[in-house]
């Protein structure tokens, strides 16, 4: 029974593949629209190892990482600053919430005017969206630092700067990682959308769009799965760092 439980996470995948194969085999859907799992994974393998998919994958990784990094570099210090003074945060809270709620895709035309057609637009729109998510989470992490812990540090004679550095900063780390994970997910979404529509020649978004235009369905599904794997991988990456460096999170 125990040995069986290890296999539980694979059950869903197996069921999906089975239903998919069955659908293809029974010809429920036009085979042109839905290729078999085998054809899809073959397209993915070939695309990733020797085709253009691998290049597009790396291009999207690069853009997502750049935009998340830029967002983090701007948003984390700013979030700490805003969070350390509740009055300061309250005075800009509406702006942050407003722009956080504004679909970043609505900003494309504006950024196109500012940065032209190219990588800079894609990266900066994604960075804009991710930065607000990270900012909001970091500021909340600092604001919600346990009052007792701050008092404890003060009672032990820690200065304001030391309390900020030794307590508030570390207290906000779990929430900062929530922000980073949400931020990188959003950055990926924005980058892929930008690659589809803003005169791109590469990237997973462009790959999906082009495959669809050419009606090359195995290629299209392969690119979709590659994008999924990328999103999952990035999330896992941040989770791993979090577990390693924020070992006390949730305890």
């Amino acid at each position: 029974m125990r040995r069986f439980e290890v296999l539980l996470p694979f059950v869903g995948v197996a069921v999906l593949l089975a239903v998919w194969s069955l659908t293809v085999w029974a010809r429920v859907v036009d085979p042109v629209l839905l290729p078999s799992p085998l054809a899809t994974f073959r397209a993915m393998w070939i695309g990733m190892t020797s085709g253009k998919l691998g290049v597009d994958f790396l291009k999207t990784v690069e853009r997502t990482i750049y935009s998340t990094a830029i967002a983090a570099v701007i948003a984390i210090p700013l979030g700490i600053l805003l969070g350390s003074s509740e009055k300061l945060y309250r005075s800009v809270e509406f702006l942050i919430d407003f722009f956080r709620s504004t679909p970043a895709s609505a900003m494309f035309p504006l950024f196109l005017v500012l940065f032209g057609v190219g990588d800079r637009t894609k990266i900066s729109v994604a960075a804009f969206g991710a930065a607000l998510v990270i900012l909001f989470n970091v500021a909340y992490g600092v604001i919600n630092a346990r009052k007792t812990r701050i008092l404890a540090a003060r009672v032990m004679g820690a200065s304001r700067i030391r309390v900020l550095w030794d307590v508030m900063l570390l207290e906000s780390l779990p929430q900062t990682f929530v922000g980073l994970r949400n931020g990188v997910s959003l950055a990926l979404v924005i980058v892929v959308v930008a690659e589809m529509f803003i005169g791109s020649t590469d990237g997973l978004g462009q790959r999906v769009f082009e495959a669809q235009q050419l009606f090359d369905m195995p290629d299209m599904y392969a690119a979709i799965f590659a994008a999924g794997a990328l999103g999952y991988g990035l999330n896992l990456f941040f989770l791993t760092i979090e577990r390693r460096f924020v070992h006390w999170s949730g305890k």
Partner: protein
Amino acid sequence: MPVAGAQPAAKTAVPGKVQDAARRTAPHVTIRGLSKRFSDATIYDNFDFDIPRGKLISVFGPNGCGKSTLINMIAGLVAADSGEILFDGRPLNHIKFGYVFQNYREAMFPWLRAFENIAYPLKAMGVPKAERIVRVERIVANLNVKIDLRLYPYQMSGGQQQLISIMRALVVDPEILFLDEPFSALDYEMTLFMREQLQRVFVETGTTTVLVSHDLEEAVYLSDRILLLSRHPARAVEFVHYDAARPRTDRTLSEAEFISTKAHCLEVFQREVRKA
């Protein structure tokens, strides 16, 4: 280095036996004209009190009378509206003190190992690392603590965490130690164990200790003096002396003096509660 409180006279600049004796018997903390209002109630109105030196005193009184507020004002966690609190004539920022919170989970730093948690107040004071290690090791040895100090707080039991908090409060050699209901979040078995630990710390260091307790048996068992407060605005209704020898044990709990002291405190307490 002498343990704080063991030789209080050694620190005075004025030599001579008369001054020493005067200093030993002079109150440690003088509270004068202390007032505190919260939005809905006056908790303290022109409150005067002297805390004696080298004693373990408990603060006991009806719910919401301001037991914790009192030690929080003395320790500077809560600002008083007016009044003066002096430690041997000096203000709070001139002395070293320790404070133990009720909620050890939130008072410990979970990102630091137990050892670093204990050393933190020294770090905040700017003590160099080598000396920090020496001083933490000394307090561990003094208290005969057998906990793996490489663990993080969340890997420890509640009692162990609170013991770490107490050591963290003691590591600076405080002149006075405050404890705000330190055992009320622990299970009964751990509470009994921790009472013994606190008693040992007190016997070994002789540090003036102020304990807020909501458990009368615990307050009497541990204390030399029990400060009984009235409902707010709080007055010192009585300052009960209980001078049974230490170390006190389970047997102390059945001695006549203990029972009568506890009964007396309970009577005063109930009279104050009924006044509402």
